[in-house]
């Protein structure tokens, strides 16, 4: 392959991975924006999404097959269920902690993460599970770009979800309320906004998107695993920070950038893919140090 072909291929790969990161990062960013919580369990929500999707498929496939129609149905149902799980977690674990010291709520999030992934580990016997779907894996070329139908559909679906999300945040009352609460919770309460309802809704939307990303990852990679949420959780957080945490378009942008960065980072001569994650984390740390408010974030007031 010529260099430009490799770069083109990597561009596509980066965008695809980046769109998964972006979908997960939105939830991270929204939750941080609204209650200033680093939701460590968010990556595990993504993993739960993938497993729920698999369970749905294994139940539904004898009746409606495992093709695109049942996948889409599974996607919607899983998004709904996992969204509700997100609300439940919020209600049980986080709401009582809203006024507690920050350290406590962070540890709570860590505990929720441990509970989620260990539960799935026990249920799945710690094994990788094949995510078998009955869809075409034929590849075709678009110029020099090697594509499969699945990949194209996945990337279109991911971008569609992001677009819907963007519309939801900017155009609806709920979206506006979310942004208002992020700015000042107490005032919102005074203005008659049901703050807890909006927080719950935020968790619902964020978890549903992560679940969608989880299923899409299952389809894309073909196998799922109880620990799949750990790395992506970290990377989605990185994406959220890059874009400016609390800013929804920033999370999408950050996700795509991180995906591209990883894809091209591995093409640097003499540095193997073994350094890929070191790159991502180092990039995150440097970003936090030099641009803690992200690309789209406004700088905070000049407090020293």
């Amino acid at each position, binding site marked *: *392959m010529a260099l430009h072909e*490799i770069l083109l*291929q*990597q561009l596509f*790969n980066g965008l*695809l*991975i980046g769109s998964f990161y972006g979908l997960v990062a939105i939830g991270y960013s929204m939750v941080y924006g609204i209650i200033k919580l680093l939701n460590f369990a968010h990556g595990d929500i993504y993993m739960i999404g993938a497993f729920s999707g698999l369970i749905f498929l294994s139940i539904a496939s004898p009746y409606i097959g495992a093709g695109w129609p049942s996948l889409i149905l599974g996607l919607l149902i899983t998004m709904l269920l996992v969204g509700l799980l997100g609300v439940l977690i919020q209600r049980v674990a986080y709401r009582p902690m809203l006024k507690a010291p920050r350290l406590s709520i962070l540890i709570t999030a860590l505990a929720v993460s441990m509970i989620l992934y260990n539960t799935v580990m026990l249920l799945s*016997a*710690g*094994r*990788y599970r*094949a995510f*078998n779907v009955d869809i075409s*894996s034929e*590849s075709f070329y678009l110029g020099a770009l*090697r594509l*499969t139908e699945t990949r194209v559909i996945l990337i279109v679906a991911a971008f569609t979800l992001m677009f819907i999300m963007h519309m939801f945040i900017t155009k609806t009352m709920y979206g506006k309320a979310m942004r208002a609460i992020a700015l000042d919770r107490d005032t919102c309460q005074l203005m008659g906004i049901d703050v807890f309802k909006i927080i719950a809704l935020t968790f619902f939307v964020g978890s549903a998107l992560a679940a969608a990303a989880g299923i899409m*990852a299952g389809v894309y*990679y*073909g*196998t799922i*695993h109880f*620990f*799949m949420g*750990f*790395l992506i959780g970290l990377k989605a957080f990185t994406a959220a920070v890059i874009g400016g945490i609390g800013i929804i378009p920033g999370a999408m942008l950050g996700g795509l950038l991180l995906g591209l960065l*990883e*894809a091209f*980072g*591995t*093409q640097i001569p003499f540095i*193997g*893919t*073994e350094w*890929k*994650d070191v790159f991502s984390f180092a990039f995150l740390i440097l970003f936090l140090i030099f641009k803690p408010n992200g690309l789209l974030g406004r700088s905070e007031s000049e407090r020293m």
Partner: protein
Amino acid sequence: MCKIDEEVFMSMKKHWILMLVAAMLVFGAFGCAEEAADPVDDPVDEFEGEVLIGIMVPTTGSEAADGTDMENAALLAVQEINDAGGVMGHRLVTTTGDDGCDPSMATAAASQLVSEEVVALVGGYCSGATLPTLAIYGEAGIPFVIAASNATSLIDENPGWGFMINSTGLDQAATAVSQFEALGVETIAVIDSGDAYSADLKEQTIIQWEGAGYEVLVDDTVQRGEVDFSAFVTSIMANQPDGIYWTGYQAEGALLIRQLREGGYEGEIIVGDGSSAQELIDLAGDAAEGVYCTGPPLTDFLPAAQSFIEGYEANFPREPGAYAALMYDATNLLVDAMERAGSFDSAAIRDALEATDGFEGLAGPVMFTEDNTLARSNFVVLEARDGRWALAE
């Protein structure tokens, strides 16, 4: 606070005092009960009671499935021996230490086994976990028949009490090299999954491959738990090696194979024995067809193993895993050594093990080199055909 609350609290308090007292008693007993006699090293005719042998495998953690298979195989062997009248008239009993495939857990497990005064040991799955235990068994003077662990680093750390009946990475690398040669491959990529075992195999393979005058185009590591290999696939496609050798485990291996094939790679793919489980083919699906594996002697292909498989499946609700046959062999070898030594003295057993000359196990004859490693290569080449592993032609 209301009154009821206080009552509950009071009763809880009493309860806890009781618990505390009980805990102290238990703790006291715990401390004293261990005051046991010196290790038994009487000759066999004075030896009384049962013979305790230790099993060290991971029964929890990521490798629990294979570890449990191995434990089962040892239990099966012990049961058969006891049914046949035991060893020199003595019953065998076992105790299991869980190494969790983790070095720290493994040292605790080893200490536990040593404390229980086992006469000898079988087991050893994850090389990284087996490694720090060698010194402990060496210091305690307990012979250890290592069934599966086979990293070459074990050789250097072995104070002489460990006996490896699985061929080492050296042999496996040689098998891989000759298989690549047989396939007409001249350039390869070697990838490991960043743990001691797979890194060791990768290094040995590179040394031998380059020693044979060929070229290694890509030498890489992927993170365990990684799912996305697309960037890696692109770099493979750019370098176009004739063959790829994956030395890691099946989970990442399946993903890698799938994504390589999806990315249009058409060269040969060989996986190491860490990926020899059926799971690899199940997870990778159609993409696994035609993949080779340098594997341990799977019981399915061992003519001598049919009765073992039947016995195993009659006792345990599962198929014997990749290392069950070796574990079964390890246990029988140990008993054989005891009989040859005519004693249950650990040192005598060790000497007998060292002198093993052609013990016939399911996986073939056992003999040891000066390093206490298997004197022949027991690796076979498997090929994925119609969704199952089969011996390659």
